[in-house]
Every structure is written in structure tokens, then in C-alpha cells.
């Protein structure tokens, strides 16, 4: 029970920081990625610099890109969920076996 409360408050704190960041940050910018701002800074420091290599494959359009990002998250979350579920069920099975013994 105590563990559940701790876990819930951890989750609540993480969500709260997310919301605060969304509210405060919204007044300062449009949440552009830092990776692309970095390339902007490079161009500001060294206006003559030209990237000397291009990505081998560039997704055709933002929709395909966000789809691939979602796929990456889904694959990862699926494996994490499977592992946690397996661990939990194994432990329950052991607990039941111990209780019967």
C-alpha cells in the first residue's frame, strides 16, 4: 500500500513538471527541438560551414517521420511491458507456490 502511494506520487510529480514546463515554456518558444537549434547555432558561429554529408535516407514528409518515431516508442514500450509483465507473473506464481508449500 505504502509502495503504491510512493509510486503514484512519483508519477504525479513527473506529470506536474511536464505541465509546468508546457505552461512556462509556451511563453518563450514554440518547443522546437534543441537538435535543430544546435545546427542554427553552428550556422551563427560559422556562417561559412556547410554540412559535408547528407542523411542516406530522409523520410518523405513529417507524417512518415512522426509515424517512425511512434513505431520506435511502441517497439520499446512493448518489450519493456512484456518484460515487466513476465517478471510480475513469475513472482506471483512463486508466491502462490510458497503459500501452498
Amino acid at each position, binding site marked *: 500500500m505504502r509502495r503504491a502511494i510512493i509510486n503514484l506520487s512519483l508519477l504525479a510529480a*513527473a506529470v506536474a513538471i*511536464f505541465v509546468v*514546463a508546457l505552461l512556462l515554456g509556451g511563453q518563450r518558444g514554440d*518547443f522546437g527541438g*534543441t537538435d535543430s537549434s544546435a545546427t542554427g547555432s553552428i550556422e551563427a558561429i*560559422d556562417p561559412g560551414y556547410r*554540412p*559535408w554529408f547528407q542523411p542516406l535516407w530522409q523520410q518523405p514528409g513529417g507524417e512518415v517521420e512522426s509515424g517512425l518515431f511512434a513505431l520506435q516508442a511502441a517497439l520499446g514500450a512493448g518489450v*519493456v511491458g512484456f518484460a515487466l509483465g513476465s517478471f510480475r507473473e513469475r513472482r506471483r506464481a512463486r508466491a502462490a507456490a510458497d*503459500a501452498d508449500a
Partner: protein
Amino acid sequence: MHIAEGFLPPLHAAAWTAAAVPFVAHGVREIKRTTATHPESKLLLGAVGAYSFVLSAIKLPSVTGSSSHPTGTGEGAILFRPPVMAALGSVVLLFQALLLAHGGLTTLGANIMSMAVAGPWAGYGVYRLLRFAPWSVAIFCAVAVADLATYVMTSTQLALAFPDPQGGFLASWERFLGLFALTQIPLAIVEGLVGVLLMNALRSWAGPELRGLGFGADRGEEPELGIPGTEVDGDEVEEARHA
């Protein structure tokens, strides 16, 4: 922290790649060794790799008005030691470089050095230093530092490659730190909180694997007798009986 394709001068790109190769090779060997000596830890290894895969796909907003993504490498570094994360992190970065045009092949070495080497080692170092702190505090700090250190490393790499014409390395470093590290602070805190959550779940469900890997042994918790908090609750036994 992904330095975009072609955005490091050839000499820098080559140097970072050369630096990353031994770390990745060592990491691959460590994975083989770990799975050979602890075959039961394979599922856990997959889980920490997948965890980094998820987190680096998510871009979170920050108070600075930009968004950036967490790294998810601290947890794996604590459980499996940092070399293993050098190999797992490289897989994540390669996937993003090839399929998402995020980062790149020429900058892969530099990105591996920040996300898969500097971050995990910094986090692991903090975890070991906080040996006498409550373990959840140690995990939180380690995970947050692993995230933040990644971006400090990226800023350093960019400042070395692009020193400011007037202020030199330091001025440029300050500029990139202001861009990356400031944005990253709230994200690192969020990642730390979620990291403690994940480790809470692993401690209650994956006790045998954690003990096998020696987790908690350096903190004076006798691994053979079980890690506090992983004992079976009475109500959970009841629940299992009825299931």
C-alpha cells in the same frame, strides 16, 4: 543531443568515431560475458535496452520553450554497468540515424560518446558515490545526471568543433550549454522520477535477476538474503492464491 548528419567537420567526426569504437567493442564483449554468466538476466537486459529505445523517441517540452528528449541510459548503467550501455545505446542511435534522419553516420561516433558513454559513466559514478544515501535518492540522482551529462558532452563536442570567433571555446561552450543543458534540467528531473518508478517495479518483481547481477551488494544489502522491499507481501500471496 543528436548532432545532425554532416555537422561535425571531417577531422572531428573521425576522431570521435575512433574514440567510440573501443567503447562499443568492449560493450559488445561485456554483453556476451554478462549473458553467459547470468543467462537469466537476458530479459532484463532486453528491458533496459528497450527502455532507452522508448525514452529517446519521446520529445518532451521544457521551461525554456524548446523540446528535447531523455536518454534512458542511467538505469541500464546501474544494473549492468556502463559498458553494456555503450553497445545498447549505439543500436538506438544507429536506428535513429538510418530510419529517422536523426543524428547521422558521420556524427554517430560523437553521439555514441555522449549518449552511450559519457551519460552512463557519469550516472554510474554518481550511483556509486551515493553509496550511503537511500537507494531511491541514489537512483534518482544517477539517472538525472546520466541524462544531463549526455547534453554537457554534446555541448563540449560542438564547442570544440565550432569555437566562437571572438570568445573561443568557452564562449561557444556557454552558448551550447545554454541551449542544451538548461532545456535538459527539467527533463532530467522527470527522467529521474520515472527511473525510480522503474527500479521500484524491478525491485519488487525481478529480485532474483537483480541479486544475480549483484545489485545492492555495494550498499551493504546482503544480496543472498534479498533486497529490502522485495519480500512477498501477505496480500499478494492471497491474491495469487485466488488467481
